[in-house]
């Protein structure tokens, strides 16, 4: 029996004192097979194909109206696909009503039942499934202990803070031992400080319950990068990028993915020429830049140079590094870093660095350096995944 705790500034901590296998008996994956959802002529989800492997956290991110919540609701059974299949474990659940899908769901506003005490909220799903009184008696403290809410069982939701209510919502979802856990923007209603600590705790929850499969929908890239094994980026009902979180961040497959997942400088480039294996040179105005040709773009093609603001340096690096010279347009001090906006060949380049003791003045010339390994060349047009 493992007992872990994390340091938290506020509220109780999530703790594991029950073996993970008791909470999540068997891991199941989620499969979207060409799933489309449309209301009349309006296509909300367009032929989504995606696999969430057992025990994995996949985050779907995208702007409002991109279809990410619709995808999650289709798994839950609240939206009926107009085409395609949804698989949970080895079952085709496309036509099953929500109450037969064996999923746990946590939503943005917690959706706790206000007239029930915390322990009755947690027991709701068990009672709905006809669990015996003995099982319910055993499972309530087990799940409340898991989310660090043992002392709050007799309280009503209105007597809890937002973070505590969200913990109860998670305990309630886990109490039925779901095949998969669906999290629909679960931290959006919390303030920034609580959100950060809840994020740590969700990560810890998954470390403690490694067989729990999670589909996590958010518009917050930090949540996705912190928690997810894989990230899917959605736009206009389509999956425009999918991959390992780090790989997607380092080597975005398209402009939208680069700009949506973290901040990125995107510079238009021409005349791609292959260089050493995995690298290529491109022309940005009258400057030749070298970067990773991760997506194997053909010679002679136009492309976009993607470089993260924190990868730009004011000091020169090793030999063979890229260099650009621009005019400082704005300097912002943001507490733990400085943000400098440069104008380089009519393009804006943003650099972030540790706080500068002598920041450059607007209007002055500044030389920035960056490593070719930190540059990714991406195709000009969005490729739908």
């Amino acid at each position: 029996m493992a007992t872990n705790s994390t340091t938290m500034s506020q509220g109780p901590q999530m703790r594991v004192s029950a073996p993970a296998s008791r909470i999540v008996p068997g891991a199941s994956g989620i499969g979207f097979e060409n799933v489309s959802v449309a209301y009349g002529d309006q296509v909300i989800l367009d032929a989504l194909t995606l696999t969430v492997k057992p025990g994995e956290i996949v985050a779907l991110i995208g702007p409002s109206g991109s279809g990410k919540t619709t995808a999650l609701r289709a798994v839950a059974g609240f939206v009926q696909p107009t085409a395609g299949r949804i698989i949970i474990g080895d079952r085709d659940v496309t036509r099953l009503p929500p109450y037969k899908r064996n999923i746990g769901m946590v939503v943005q506003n917690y959706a706790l039942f206000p007239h029930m005490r915390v322990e009755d909220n947690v027991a709701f799903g068990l009672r709905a499934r006809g669990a015996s009184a003995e099982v319910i008696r055993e499972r309530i403290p087990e799940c409340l202990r898991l989310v660090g809410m043992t002392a709050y069982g007799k309280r009503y939701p209105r007597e809890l803070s937002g973070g505590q209510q969200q913990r109860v919502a998670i305990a309630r979802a886990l109490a039925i031992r779901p095949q998969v856990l669906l999290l629909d923007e679960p931290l959006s209603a919390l303030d920034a400080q609580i959100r950060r600590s809840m994020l740590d705790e969700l990560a810890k929850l998954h470390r403690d319950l490694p067989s729990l499969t999670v589909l996590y929908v958010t518009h917050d890239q930090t949540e996705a990068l912190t928690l997810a094994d894989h990230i899917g980026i959605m736009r206009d009902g389509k999956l425009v990028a999918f991959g390992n979180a780090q790989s997607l961040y380092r080597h975005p497959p398209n402009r939208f993915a680069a700009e949506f997942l973290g901040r990125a400088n995107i510079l238009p480039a021409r005349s791609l020429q292959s260089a050493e294996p995995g690298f290529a040179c491109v022309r940005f105005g009258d400057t030749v830049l070298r970067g990773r040709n991760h997506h194997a773009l053909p010679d002679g093609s136009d492309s976009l140079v993607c470089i993260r603001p924190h990868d730009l340096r004011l000091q020169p690096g090793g030999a063979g590094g890229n260099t650009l010279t621009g005019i400082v347009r704005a300097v912002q001090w943001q507490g733990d870093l400085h943000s400098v906006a440069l104008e380089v060949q009519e393009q804006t380049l943003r650099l972030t660095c540790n706080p500068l003791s002598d920041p450059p003045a607007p209007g002055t010339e500044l030389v920035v350096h960056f490593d070719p390994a930190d540059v990714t060349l991406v195709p000009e047009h969005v490729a739908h995944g």
Partner: protein
Amino acid sequence: MADIAVAPSARAAHSPQRRYWIAPPLLVLVVLFFYPLALILREALVGEDHVLSLAHFASVLRSNQFLSGLYHTITIALSASTGCLVLGFIFSVIIAFIPFPGAKLIARVIDTFIALPTFLVALAFTFIYGSAGLLNQSLMHLMHLELPPLNFLYSQWGVILSEITVYTPFVMRPLLASFSLIDPSQIEVASSLGARPWRIVRRIILPAALPALIAGGSLCLLLTVNEFGIVLFIGAKDVITLPLLVYDKAIQEFDYTTACVIAVVNIALSLGLYAFYRMVIAYCGGRRAGMG
């Protein structure tokens, strides 16, 4: 002029000039409401003998006619209110939680029933369920009968059915308002946890709607206890309620003392139910505020 724009403080409300503003509304209330009520009470206590006595009360309250009237009033009010609650709850759940095209239109059409005079439904029912109504005529024609097979309209059941039809919107209005406050994601989460629709209605929707049900039910009870038009229009044999009894005694028999005694009982019953209704509203308002 600036002080006009400022919200009146408690101090301003108690200023000497402002206290006289109580006179006009009080005068209207006294002339139009309290004085006539006082006259009714005086007539009930003094009677034609002009002697203060409870003898009239005692004899009227012991009479079979009064007891029968009271019995019918309470029976009809309770049955109709129960019917309104059941029907109103079912309709409201369907309109609020089962998406279908035209749900809002249906809710508004039902809502307009509140604006119609109550006897109109009784009149409409005579065209449908009356002896010469559509249903009886069709059944007589189909089954080759000489007499109308259905004659429930001119009984207590006809009154109850009419009152249910008229007063169900009074239950639906607060219910639909309370349903609109239920977070749809609560229902979705309950469903994802394995709850079937009936359990969701019982465990999630009904507890949330209970204050509205009690408020709507008490309002129905209050209105059906005092219902006059429907009972008079249907003219059911042997179905005399307290308001109808007051009418009979005062207008047809010119027995004003008895009419006033029954009226006093009717007023006491109504005020008691109204006090209950207000208590429920206050309690539910407090609970709702606590839930937020």
